[in-house]
């Protein structure tokens, strides 16, 4: 679900095919019948943006048919915990949870905590208050546990305030009929999925869910994944071979770019970025962001080691290891917030490094208008992308809305090196890092990011040398001394990896994050990657072929943390440490040796912690985790069926309609996600929500997606002749019924219109797109691949021109996957006429822009 694995991860998909050959059932739930669906045993069409209803329906089915894995749920999840009496579910409060503050438009989450604990939301809450919303601290609570468990529990899980009963009640209306009504899925197909999942879970069997941006790119994106987590926890599929939830990652090293982040609000290893006011000291920062228990209990060690890696000898205990050199979050600096500030003239300069927002971001016109307000723009890429060329080649230039001579932005284009021209890592699904070796020198002036950033930093330091401004010390005191080699003075990427992997005081490499200390004796650029240079070997460069090892293939690459391939794999053994079944043996307790053993993976658990270990009241960190609690990054060591903290929009997923939808929410009066981030302004007009007058002007559901043949915003594929010829033009996919309805001709042209703009596409009439019956009427889908832009060999309009900016407030991801639109035959008008067409639509829909 929420993914199209065969098309977007074809190399990874070979393992799905192999599983299929061994008898696995493959199900694909997707608005279209894709190349993945062609290989699936069952394809279930679904209305875009209704995955929570579907998954909730599965939860409902699991309870109705008593198919949940009792022992697993009782011991390994927080289903037994009892909640506070103040807690209110969406069932009680018209689609909202308790704690909703309408003035702040945010939740106060205290009522979500376990009974008899106090939840401290630390970073997250403050991000909200400071007009910043975003990644919460990871279950950062200081709540105290009893024997390592929540203080108030009911092992029989019958208490009406225990989490299991709350969850059951929460999903009680997500019946198969409701799923059919909301999602448009034929009841029988939905039930087939539910049945197969239940039949294939338990002691002897496990089921896996694979997802990608089909789930994340929604205003309810994070809750989509939460819904899957609930399903998988109830069925006992997490931490077990053949189970789990796989986030399909690996495009453009997206996983690596969050691990060692290019995100404003986190530090390497998902440590939250400090706040200016609330965290005046390192210790306060640790106190507010680090739970006392679990793996995060060592936050100080991770933080100090990171600071030592960055500031080396200058970082001492006296100056709190240069903690104050770190930049502080002063607001929402996520991509869209930045672009909007840019639009209002508040940003001077911008680096777009391997990023093409004028094609890849939502509301691309807004992106270009924003760029036109900069003083300077630096674009690093392999080709002059649409972003680099926005000032002379764009829809606004074409339409005459903007003229190059009126754009004051000074644009610098710096050519980049391709992945074959540099050393480095990609991090994929399964948190696996695979090293790639440089094959040849980059041509001409092309340079790797590493080279560019390093030398930019070096030059800045040279300019600042001798300065006594305290602000400059942060840059001058950085360790910036990687060895360089070759004609381009390329920094040694392995040296950087070694710094990331961590060293002890004597210079030797650490084995794992357990060896990191908070006294400045260790340095480590990212605690989750600690040990990637274990034994002085680049572990991520290991390439023992699969034929030379068992299926776990532990000698290929390296996974964080600690080279654990299946996370939380303690859960593959029962509370006593024995495998749930011989068939699903993976990790188990060897009583003779007194340690955890595996078929070939690293146990994701302290090696010598016995299954019957119970923590004392004063124990902290990993010592506070019981011997039968696999989810060691949570302070209670439990899988969270209910999330008492960590998310801004609710402890449980609830179905809300997408921002733009032709339909009302039949479950709750609350139509849309209450915490979603909206930006109502003339450049970002929204369609009226489903059911409101004017919504019918854009009667069709629009979804965007990818094709195998192209890559993201197209700079790397539409510029390559062999790829450009495979899919040369933008096309839309519509059902024969919609084609007839709107007079569209297969192979002809169509104009797709939203309140933002109108674009044109070739028409592909296909039965792989079906109309669905939703709430008694037909729902028609217009599908658009989003790869095209006006530059390169394969040119076309950009699908993201049509989308508004509206974000999931947990992670600031926009709702690319669903909007509404109209479609008409023929090419779009040009120039002034295009603006007039869009204006006419806005008028009819009552949209002010």
């Amino acid at each position, binding site marked *: 679900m929420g993914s199209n694995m*065969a*098309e977007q991860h*074809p*190399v990874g*998909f*070979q393992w799905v*095919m192999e599983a*299929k050959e061994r008898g696995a*059932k493959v199900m694909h739930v997707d608005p279209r*019948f894709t*190349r*993945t*669906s*062609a*290989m*699936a*045993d*069952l*394809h279930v*069409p679904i209305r875009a943006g209704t995955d929570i209803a579907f998954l909730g329906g599965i939860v409902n089915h699991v309870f109705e048919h008593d198919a949940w894995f009792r022992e697993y749920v009782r011991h390994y999840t927080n289903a037994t915990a009892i909640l506070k009496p103040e807690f209110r579910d969406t069932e009680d409060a018209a689609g909202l949870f308790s704690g909703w503050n309408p003035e702040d438009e945010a939740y106060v989450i205290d009522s979500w905590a376990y009974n008899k604990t106090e939840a401290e939301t630390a970073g997250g809450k403050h991000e909200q208050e400071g007009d910043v919303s975003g990644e919460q601290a990871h279950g950062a609570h200081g709540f105290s546990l009893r024997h390592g468990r929540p203080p108030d529990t009911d092992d029989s899980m019958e208490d009406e305030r225990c989490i299991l009963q709350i969850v059951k009640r929460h999903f009680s209306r997500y019946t198969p009929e409701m799923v059919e009504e909301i999602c448009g899925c*034929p009841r*029988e*197909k939905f039930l*087939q999925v539910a049945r197969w999942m239940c039949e294939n879970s338990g002691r002897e069997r496990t089921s896996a869910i694979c997802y990608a941006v089909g789930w994340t790119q929604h205003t309810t994106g994070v809750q989509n994944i939460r819904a899957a987590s609930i399903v998988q926890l109830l069925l006992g599929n997490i931490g077990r071979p053949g189970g789990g939830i796989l986030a399909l990652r690996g495009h453009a090293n997206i996983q690596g770019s969050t691990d060692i982040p290019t995100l404003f609000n986190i530090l390497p290893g998902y440590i939250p970025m400090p706040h200016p006011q609330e965290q005046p000291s390192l210790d306060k920062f640790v106190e507010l962001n680090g739970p006392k228990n679990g793996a995060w209990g060592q936050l100080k060690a991770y933080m100090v080691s990171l600071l030592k890696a960055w500031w080396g000898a200058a970082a001492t205990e006296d100056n709190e290891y240069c903690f104050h050199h770190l930049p502080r979050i002063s607001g929402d600096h996520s991509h869209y917030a930045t672009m909007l500030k840019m639009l209002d003239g508040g940003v001077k300069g911008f680096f777009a490094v391997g990023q093409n927002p004028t094609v890849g971001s939502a509301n691309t016109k807004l992106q270009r208008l924003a760029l036109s307000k900069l003083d300077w723009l630096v674009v690093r890429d392999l080709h002059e992308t649409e972003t680099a060329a926005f000032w002379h080649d764009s829809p606004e230039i074409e339409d005459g809305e903007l003229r190059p001579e009126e754009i004051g932005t000074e644009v610098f284009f710096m050519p980049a090196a391709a992945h074959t021209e540099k050393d480095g890592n990609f991090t994929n699904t399964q948190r696996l890092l695979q090293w790639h070796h440089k094959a040849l020198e980059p041509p001409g002036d092309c340079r790797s990011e590493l080279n560019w950033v390093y030398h930019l930093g070096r030059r800045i330091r040279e300019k600042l040398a001798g300065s006594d401004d305290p602000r400059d010390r942060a840059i001058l005191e950085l360790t910036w001394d990687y060895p360089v080699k070759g004609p381009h003075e390329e920094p040694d990427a392995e040296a950087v990896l070694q710094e990331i992997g961590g060293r002890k005081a004597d210079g030797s490499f650490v084995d794992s994050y357990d060896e990191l200390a908070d006294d400045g004796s260790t340095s480590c650029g990212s605690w989750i990657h600690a040990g990637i240079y274990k034994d002085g070997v680049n572990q991520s460069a290991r390439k023992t072929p699969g034929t030379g090892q068992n299926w776990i293939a532990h000698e290929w690459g390296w996974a964080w943390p600690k080279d654990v391939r299946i996370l939380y794999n303690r859960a593959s053994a029962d509370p006593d440490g024995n495998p749930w079944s011989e068939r699903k043996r993976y990790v188990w307790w060897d009583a003779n040796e007194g340690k955890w053993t595996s078929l070939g993976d690293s146990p994701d658990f302290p090696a010598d912690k016995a299954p019957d270990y119970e923590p004392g009241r004063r124990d902290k960190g990993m010592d506070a985790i019981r011997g039968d609690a696999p989810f060691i990054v949570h302070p209670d060591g439990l899988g969270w069926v209910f999330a008492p903290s960590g998310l801004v929009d609710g402890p449980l997923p609830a179905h809300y309609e997408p921002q733009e939808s032709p339909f009302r929410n039949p479950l709750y009066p609350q139509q849309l996600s209450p915490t979603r981030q909206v930006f109502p302004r003339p450049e970002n007009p929204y369609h009226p929500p489903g059911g409101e007058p004017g919504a019918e002007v854009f009667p069709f559901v629009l979804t965007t997606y990818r*094709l*195998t*043949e192209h890559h993201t915003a197209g700079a790397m594929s539409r510029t390559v*002749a*062999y*790829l*450009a*010829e*495979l*899919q*040369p*033009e933008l*096309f839309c996919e519509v*059902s024969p*019924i919609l084609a007839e309805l709107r007079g569209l001709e*297969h*192979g002809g042209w169509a104009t797709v219109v939203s309140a933002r703009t109108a674009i044109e596409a*070739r*028409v*592909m009439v*296909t*039965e*792989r797109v*079906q*109309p*669905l*019956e939703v709430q008694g009427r037909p729902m028609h889908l217009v599908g658009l691949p989003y790869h095209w832009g006006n530059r390169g*060999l394969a040119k076309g309009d950009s699908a993201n021109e049509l989308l508004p900016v509206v974000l999931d407030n947990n992670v600031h991801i926009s709702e690319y996957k669903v909007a509404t639109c109209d479609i008409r035959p023929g090419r779009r008008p040009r120039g002034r006429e295009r603006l007039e067409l869009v204006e006419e639509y806005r008028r009819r829909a009552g949209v002010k822009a």
Partner: protein
Amino acid sequence: MKLETSAWPDSYGADAKPRVGFFTDTSVCIGCKACEVACKEWNRIPDSPKGFTGNSYDNTVDLGANTWRHVAFVEKRVPVDADGGASLVEAAERGGLVEEAGVNTYQEGDGLRWLMSSDVCKHCTHAACLEVCPTGALFRTEFGTVVVQEDVCNGCGYCVPACPFGVLDRREDDGRVWKCTLCYDRLKDDQEPACAQACPTNSIQFGELAELRARAEGRLAQLTAAGQADARLYLADSDDGIGGGGAFFLLLDDPEVYGLPPDPVDTTRDLGSIWAAAGAAALALGAGLAAAVLGGRG
């Protein structure tokens, strides 16, 4: 199983290698086109853009001088039992239901079929292109494959209409005929062809032909037992019109649905009668000339 061809292995003697080829199991093809791109990259084939064709996801169109691997896409309605007035959704629902037996479906679902298949030169046992080539540019390698020597070919074009599969074509700006070499250069270095290496699902399997044929039988039996009644092997037998293909396929429908001929024949099979007819006509011409000139007055 008769794998010998006219020039292999006999003419190679001790230098002959086992005959190699492709078994393309289209049932596991995911239509990713890695094979097309890998082939073009390895062989430095010019790009050949054709524009948006509307033929499902196939914008490559066909094999030719600049396309040696071509992925075909066919969208078909699987016949659903006639039921007057069934809505598209209902029909799809019925068509897509999977029996309790848990039949594994390939390229089918929702009452819809989406066939995907990577086409290539068949490296025929009886290769018409090779037989008709007047310069000897086309030859049989020690691996039993058929290769065009680009330094000999003078672009006479005879092989082009001789091929019953429409594989060969002449490169316009170049004048010579080009086609799949089964990566002859890679074979000599003990590597597998680029397309086989790139294929992520092992739809394209490379190896010794005898072994591939045996494997294909197993696969066909497996699919048939699982209820895929339309599965069939194509060009896997020595007694078909081309003597079996060095590259053969497992298809999920009639060959012509994929653009392949159902009964391809090596044209030189009829060479005997062709020459005989030409000879007879030549003699008739002689007789006619004689009658006209020698008979009658003056």
